[in-house]
């Protein structure tokens, strides 16, 4: 494997992990907002 491929793999891995975590946070946020609007409706 060409050594530059390792470079791309490392950068891709970094952003994949960060992207995954941010998506987890965003999903939790929207679920929370759903709960809040569920409360105020009642």
């Amino acid at each position: 494997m060409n050594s530059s491929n390792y470079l791309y793999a490392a950068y891709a891995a970094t952003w994949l992990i960060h992207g995954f975590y941010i998506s987890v946070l965003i999903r939790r946020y929207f679920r929370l907002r759903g709960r809040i609007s569920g409360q105020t409706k009642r």
Partner: protein
Amino acid sequence: MKRVFPILAVLTALLLAYGFYEAMWVAPTERTMGDVQRIFYYHVPSAWTGFCLFFTNLLASIVYLIWKNPKADALAVSSAEVGVVFCTIVLVTGPIWARPVWGIWWTWDVRLTSTLVLWLIYVSYLVLRRFSDSSQTPVLAAVLAIFGALDVPLVYFSIWFFRTQHPQPVIGGGGSLDPRMLRVFLLNLFTFSCFGAMLCWARYRLEWMQREVDEAEALESLLGTESVSLRDTQVKIAAGKNPRHP
């Protein structure tokens, strides 16, 4: 406070993009390692940010144990989680860097092993928080954080001595940096620190919001929906305001 966060988030994203551009194209290519060395601009700043976050967790845990401030506990869990994310990146990019340069995926040298142990300790911290049913989970977690902090110097010292007995290639060895490389490195160091702080802040706000919602729901089941003050609380949360402040 509400306006500041999106602005800073956008700024941080721009900084990250700029840091990426600098790391990939502006920084000069290293003589012996080639382009692969550019991983260094992501690997080391991530390690630095991760360690700072773990240190934040330690301080927040101590504050919580002494003063039982719930904000300290929310900060503790946020910094632990984001710290684990950054530490994971260090442990992933490290071997990817080591393989083409030194021919080995892993070596039990001081830095890598200490990072691995730190990662293990904090993953166990997060597992304890998730699995603990006690209402005193924050106290237990804070105690575990202190144990972890006591352990880290011992880990470092024991591996250091082991390595002086069994020397092995040191990954990411020292040596001075070309000033242009230093500039890119410092830029990415600053950028990732900001990114880590922003993620921690976002996670903290999410945690705090979660606790408010849980509390509101608990109050609702206790008092019933006729309570006027409860309605106020719910309206305030929905509007994004802190229900405790007028």
